[in-house]
């Protein structure tokens, strides 16, 4: 290799920086392009319906009436229920793996919980239809009569519906929340726990001290899970019943934003119909974007505080967490 002259070299280096930088720019442009494209296609619907789109309940493509409230409700309600179920479990896993588990169990257990995230949505959906939904149905029919009269459990016990969707979502969200929460707990300096122990704290009290120290990151982990739940499509579509209604009932077949896009996008014959669906996609995009930005900022804040101790290794697991 003949050494290029210093001038050549700095020119080469600049070319290298700009060239590779261009590909990094592509990543940024991709997100910008998604935003632009969604906005462009949904303009028709936005201009025509305005905010009423999200406040009305009638979804009748044939009549040209588009109200997305039931989908918004279904997405929010199912995600809320899923977080209600998944958060305690995910935090339990994170605590167990970072504070309690014997060292030898730690890696295999972490790997197994991460495998939960590797199962494709469609497989969860298939399992949901043929295994979970029948179980939920028998659960629903065995519920005492007086409970069935409450709004939370009203309606026929068909199995497909909000409860099945929330359960599946919870399973799918757990690995994301738990692996980030575990990473956050690991980043908490051991001095926090040692100080607690020195003051006579029990194990749980020491853990509480660690949780308190990392709380912004823990909140970030939960919010990251929320983003996953909101965008989840196939498994939910297959078990939620796809019935646009606003209902508190866990038994009621309902519908989500992602599900309606998945089901109706290819059928959207006219521009307005398509535009309405894309507007739903736009809101999904904006909401998950904000959730991701927020959760990442929260998680970063914790890991920056204690940069010194943040483990450098495990590139793939961190890459997956970023997922």
């Amino acid at each position, binding site marked *: 290799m003949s*050494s290029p002259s210093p001038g050549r*070299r700095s020119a*080469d280096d600049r070319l*290298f*920086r700009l060239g*590779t*930088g261009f*590909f*990094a720019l*592509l*990543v*940024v442009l*991709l*997100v910008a*392009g998604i935003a632009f*494209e969604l906005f462009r*296609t949904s303009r028709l619907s936005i201009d025509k319906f305005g905010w009423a789109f999200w406040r009305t309940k009638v979804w009748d493509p044939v009549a040209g009436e588009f109200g997305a409230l039931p989908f918004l409700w279904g997405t929010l309600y199912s995600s809320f229920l899923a977080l209600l179920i998944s958060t305690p*479990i*995910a935090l*339990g*896993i994170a*605590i*167990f793996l970072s504070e*309690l588990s014997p060292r030898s169990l730690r890696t295999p*257990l972490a790997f*197994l919980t991460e495998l939960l995230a590797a*199962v*494709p*949505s*469609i*497989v*969860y959906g*298939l*399992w949901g*239809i*043929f*295994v979970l939904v029948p179980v939920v149905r028998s659960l629903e029919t065995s519920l005492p009569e007086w409970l069935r009269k409450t709004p939370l459990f009203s309606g026929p016990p068909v199995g497909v519906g909000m409860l099945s969707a929330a359960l599946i979502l919870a399973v799918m969200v757990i*690995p994301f929340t*738990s692996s980030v929460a575990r990473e956050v707990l690991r980043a908490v300096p051991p001095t926090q726990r040692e100080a607690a122990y020195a003051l006579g704290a*029990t*194990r*749980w*009290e020491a853990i509480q001290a660690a949780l308190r120290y990392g709380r912004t990151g823990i909140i970030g982990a939960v919010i990251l899970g929320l983003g996953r739940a909101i*965008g989840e*499509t*196939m498994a939910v579509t297959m078990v939620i019943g796809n019935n646009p209604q606003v209902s508190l009932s866990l038994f009621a077949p309902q519908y989500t934003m992602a599900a309606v896009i*998945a089901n109706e*996008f*290819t059928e959207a014959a006219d521009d307005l119909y398509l535009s309405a669906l894309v507007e739903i*996609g736009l809101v*999904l*995009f904006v909401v998950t974007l904000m959730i*991701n930005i927020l959760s990442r900022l929260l998680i970063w804040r914790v890991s920056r505080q204690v940069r010194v101790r943040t483990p450098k*290794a*495990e*590139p*793939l*697991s961190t*890459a997956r967490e*970023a997922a």
Partner: protein
Amino acid sequence: MNLAARRRALSHFVVVLCGVAVLVALLPLVLVFFYVLRQGITALNWDFFTKMPKPVGEAGGGMANAVVGTLILIAIASAVAVPVGLIAGTYLSEYGRKPFASLARFTADVLNGIPSIVIGIFAYGLAVMPVRRFSAIAGGLALGFMMIPIITRTTEELLNLVPSSLREGALALGATRARAAFSVMLPAALPGIMTGILVALSRIAGETAPLLFTAFNNRFFSTRLTQPIASLPVQVYTYAISPYEDWHRQAWAGALVLVGVIFSFSVLARVVTKRLERMHAR
């Protein structure tokens, strides 16, 4: 019970609860695995890979078109995502401290969290709407967009693991930065990066939502990139929500194939990563 005993009891109780949480989370994993294996294994045979779908009512047949379709879609996705991810990751590793690098890194992470169905809409607008036809290219693009952030970030992280003395050595010998990055750093990090690509592939191999209205589906055998194409996940979906018993069986077989491929990718990636970590720790 005095206060100290109560505190200790509570502590023990919480410790047990945390252990239970692990078991509760592993239960669905075991159940999904068990059912996919049990239902899938009876339906899975050589025909599945070599025969075409039979019309409704006729038993037998396979998903040869969907298997080939998935391979084609993955190939297109990789062709898009691997170069972009590799080079963008190289930039992030070489110039990671620049504000623009922070922005790109952040965007990649955020892109990772965007629902796949939304990415599907984008690919639809980009590659389906202008030509008014579903196509393998549109589906491959959608999957590729999902792979880009994963490959970018893994490449960056693995390049950062390579000791910088290697780069400094190359630069001291008079190499340009490009030369140091592409002929020294990248090859050193290559095994890990390949694993990162495997992880990215396993993430998208089972993706269904973004294919529904990009690659669409095809009852027939097709390798044309400008035509709708079948894929395993979409075929599993179509069969799962159909009312036919025989199709359900085939859906389970398809799920088994997907899960089998994805799990072996994950395990392989895990093993290679562990080995690399040990190597770099030395």
